[in-house]
């Protein structure tokens, strides 16, 4: 029997007292995804990872890898709000009693000047180029230096997306985003992470400039209005959560820091360290979206 250390608040909607069957969708060193139906996933993560929406962090040793429990894709999982059982490997995970991690957006009253905000974003750009991984699309921040198939492939769509947001042209947003979903290797293709970063900036920096959340949500909604079947299930769910302004802990922390603090290095590095290129791709989205929102300020 394993104990859950924390559980994301949004799982309240997914995990109920009714016991349902799911299947283990995929297993990695630090994470194991359990698919409940076509549209929902519960992700078990090791205690080493930060909190994410829709995840349950397990109370296991830091270096304990989840694949070491014997989980394999395709195994049956029996799930309710108290417990997840994977009978094939005799493991049950007790959820009751775990700390709830509130994955809801956290908007604070901005405390820094626009100039400081701009500097924060520039700082992130520097950190990405220095410490980030540019094999994904983070190299988009760096002009033409890096030869990268992905970057060349999307540059026009990225520009179009910027234009769409700037002019509040929903059709343009949808069309551009469509050309940006699901590109790149990995479970969360690089462009999806990038879009998630843009959404984070859209919400948090949009909020900094006093935009109504409803309007921001509308744009985010159009960004993923043609999502279905365009990317992996995991990525799809990640983007849907992003649309609802639910981001993982490092993104949320970084966004709060950008709009409220002048020391962002730690928070940014934490994000950059996520996944293969995911963290860097997402941070690139934050920079891109941030600069865009500074330009746009108030949505039309």
């Amino acid at each position, binding site marked *: 029997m394993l104990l859950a250390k924390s559980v994301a608040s949004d799982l309240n909607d997914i995990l109920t007292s009714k016991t349902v069957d799911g299947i283990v969708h995929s297993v990695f060193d630090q994470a194991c995804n359990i698919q409940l139906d076509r549209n929902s996933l519960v992700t078990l993560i090791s205690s080493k990872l930060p909190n994410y929406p829709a995840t349950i962090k397990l109370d296991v040793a830091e270096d304990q890898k989840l694949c070491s429990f014997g989980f394999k894709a395709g195994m049956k999982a029996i799930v309710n709000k108290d417990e997840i059982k994977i009978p094939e490997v*005799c493991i049950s995970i007790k959820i009751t009693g775990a700390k709830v991690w509130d994955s809801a957006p956290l908007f604070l009253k901005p405390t820094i000047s626009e100039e400081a905000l701009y500097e924060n974003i520039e700082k992130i750009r520097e950190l990405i180029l220095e410490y980030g991984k540019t094999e994904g699309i983070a190299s988009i921040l760096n002009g033409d230096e890096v030869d990268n198939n992905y970057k060349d492939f999307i540059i026009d769509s990225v520009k179009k997306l910027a234009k769409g947001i700037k002019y509040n042209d929903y059709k343009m947003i949808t069309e551009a985003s469509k050309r940006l979903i699901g590109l790149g290797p990995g479970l969360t293709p690089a462009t999806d992470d990038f879009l998630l970063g843009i959404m984070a900036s859209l919400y948090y920096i949009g909020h900094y400039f006093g935009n109504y959340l409803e309007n921001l949500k509308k744009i985010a909604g159009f960004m993923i209005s043609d999502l279905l079947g365009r990317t992996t299930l995991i990525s799809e769910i990640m983007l849907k959560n992003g649309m609802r302004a639910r981001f993982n802990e490092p993104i949320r922390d970084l966004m709060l820091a950008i709009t409220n603090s002048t020391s962002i290095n730690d928070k940014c590095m934490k994000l950059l360290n996520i996944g293969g290129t995911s963290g860097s791709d997402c941070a690139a989205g934050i920079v891109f979206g941030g600069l865009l929102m500074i330009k746009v300020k108030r949505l039309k």
Partner: protein
Amino acid sequence: MVQERIEAANKKVMEIILNGQPTLLDIGRAQEIVPGMTEKMILHAGPPIKWEKMSGPLRGAVIGALIYEGLEVDEKEAIELAASGEISYDPCHHHNAVGPMAGVVSASMPVWILQNKAYGNYSYCTLNEGLGKVLRYGAYSDEVIKRLRWMENLLAPLLKQALKLYGPIDLKTMIAQALQMGDEGHNRNRAGTSLLIRELAPYIVQTKFSEEEKIKVLKFIDSNDHFFLNLTMPACKCTMDAAKNIEFSTIVTVMARNGTEFGIRVSGLGERWFTGPAGIVDGLLFPGYTTKDANPDIGDSVIAETAGIGGFAMAAAPAIVQFVGGSAKDAINFTLKMYEITAVENNIYKIPALDFRGTPTGIDIRKVVETGILPSINTGIAHKDPGVGQVGAGLVKPPMNCFEDALQAFVEDLENKNII
């Protein structure tokens, strides 16, 4: 021809071992429960041994047991009685029982009662006394005796009641889980003890004892990581016992030490012991002690390795390998080496770090002799003087001659039967 016979016999033995279903049923008083147990009998760990040959910790434990039983009141008289011939000594293993370190069991002691549900046979083991100065390390001071009485008068009855409320406990699953939580089932029992407490706690609370008593019992179990060891051991014992006396089998069914000698029994060789001098444990000594303080290897706990856990499952418990200054990789290699001398990979006991490979199970004396690889055993180190207690923990190996002698006897047996 003979090889096929051996393989077939070993296959049968391994089926029995893998199918074993050790289950905790109850607690009872040794004299009433343990077959062949009498008032003036003392059971001990390892192969048979006379009082004269006993090492310090075993003697200490015998003295303590005599005092505890009220047969004699003081140390001097107890020693006289112990040597008088009036007391009969017998290995735990001759009574379906096992005991850690000195392994001393006397008539009034409470014992766990286990049954191998698959084959119906029983096994027994005392309750673990905790750490520090304890009888199993040969201590017999007042506090030791007092604790034993408390165990008899409160701990055992309370747990018995809780068990009655709970019903039988499937120990195999619990041990399997413990292995996945960093135990190896011999020298690290933290996970197993925790699992046991978790299962029993709600029922302990429901017993008809006072709050204070319940708290004391829970605290007692909680304070002792090795509490579960005294369940792992009889679980292994009843698993292995079901596989004894299978003609032509070269699988080891018992390994045990009495502090002077190391002994093994082989399924195809019946009740015979093959013994050699007990080794000195190579390991980490607690501050203030040197190897000179260490008693030779002692205890029945090596039944764990015999059944495929303990040192054989070292890869599951990298923390343990620190006792011998090793790394996590060494822990894995310790386990991998044991596959060289065992018959099968366990179907239930699995090691996360080896991608859930089953633990190496079923020591084959042929493989031990042929490869020259000895079983590697995790164990505690007792002080050589009675009453001092544990001075360290580490790794030990049986003497090679046990296996060589057994092999020779095995061949002679077949020759006598005109099979070869």
